[in-house]
């Protein structure tokens, strides 16, 4: 199953601007992760936020989590052309014992130089 939905589906910004992507999910989670995928490649882990955390930073990345709204956002500050990629949120369902990771539909980010 796929329980995450990213918004917007596509985002185009100028280099130097900030990019914000949102993710909504359906069930209770243990943690939420964000991944990046360059075109035609595998996914790479960016950042994880646990269900008891509200905000987390890593370099130019800032992630927030609102478990009451079942939503998360990923902010990329001072974007660069190299940030062009698709970004996915992924969740662990709290009740699932199989350690499965379910991905959202992704946001395709284009940073224009």
């Amino acid at each position: 199953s796929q329980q995450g939905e990213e918004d917007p589906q596509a985002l185009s910004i100028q280099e130097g601007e900030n990019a914000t992507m949102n993710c909504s999910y359906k069930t209770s989670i243990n943690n939420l992760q964000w991944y990046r995928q360059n075109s035609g490649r595998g996914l790479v882990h960016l950042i994880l936020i646990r269900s008891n955390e509200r905000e987390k930073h890593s370099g130019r990345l800032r992630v927030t989590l609102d478990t009451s709204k079942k939503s998360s956002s990923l902010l990329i500050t001072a974007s660069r052309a190299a940030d062009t990629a698709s970004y996915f949120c992924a969740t662990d369902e709290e009740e699932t014992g199989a350690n499965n990771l379910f991905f959202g539909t992704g946001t395709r980010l284009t940073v224009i130089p």
Partner: protein
Amino acid sequence: SQTIHQWPATLVQPVGSPLSLECTVEGTSNPNLYWYRQAAGRGLQLLFYSVGIGQISSEVPQNLSASRPQDRQFILSSKKLLLSDSGFYLCAWRDRVEAFFGQGTRLTVV
């Protein structure tokens, strides 16, 4: 360090032909292994996962099967491919939290 290998990178197969995609992991033991499929411009659909040798769980009914003959080897197969099997297939393994992906196989069924 752990690495994951997936091959081939691209594959064009006729309808009705068999399929075998292989994935191997190095640098870890008894990993949880996963096969995902990604349709063009879409998210990842979990197809199969395995928590150990010979243990396969399927998330969705389909024309595909998976096997895990060795601890660090995960194979995705089909006896007869359908046009709808086209897509980007990704193998992944997971430590307690983070998932590590192979580079993917672009399968086109013609």
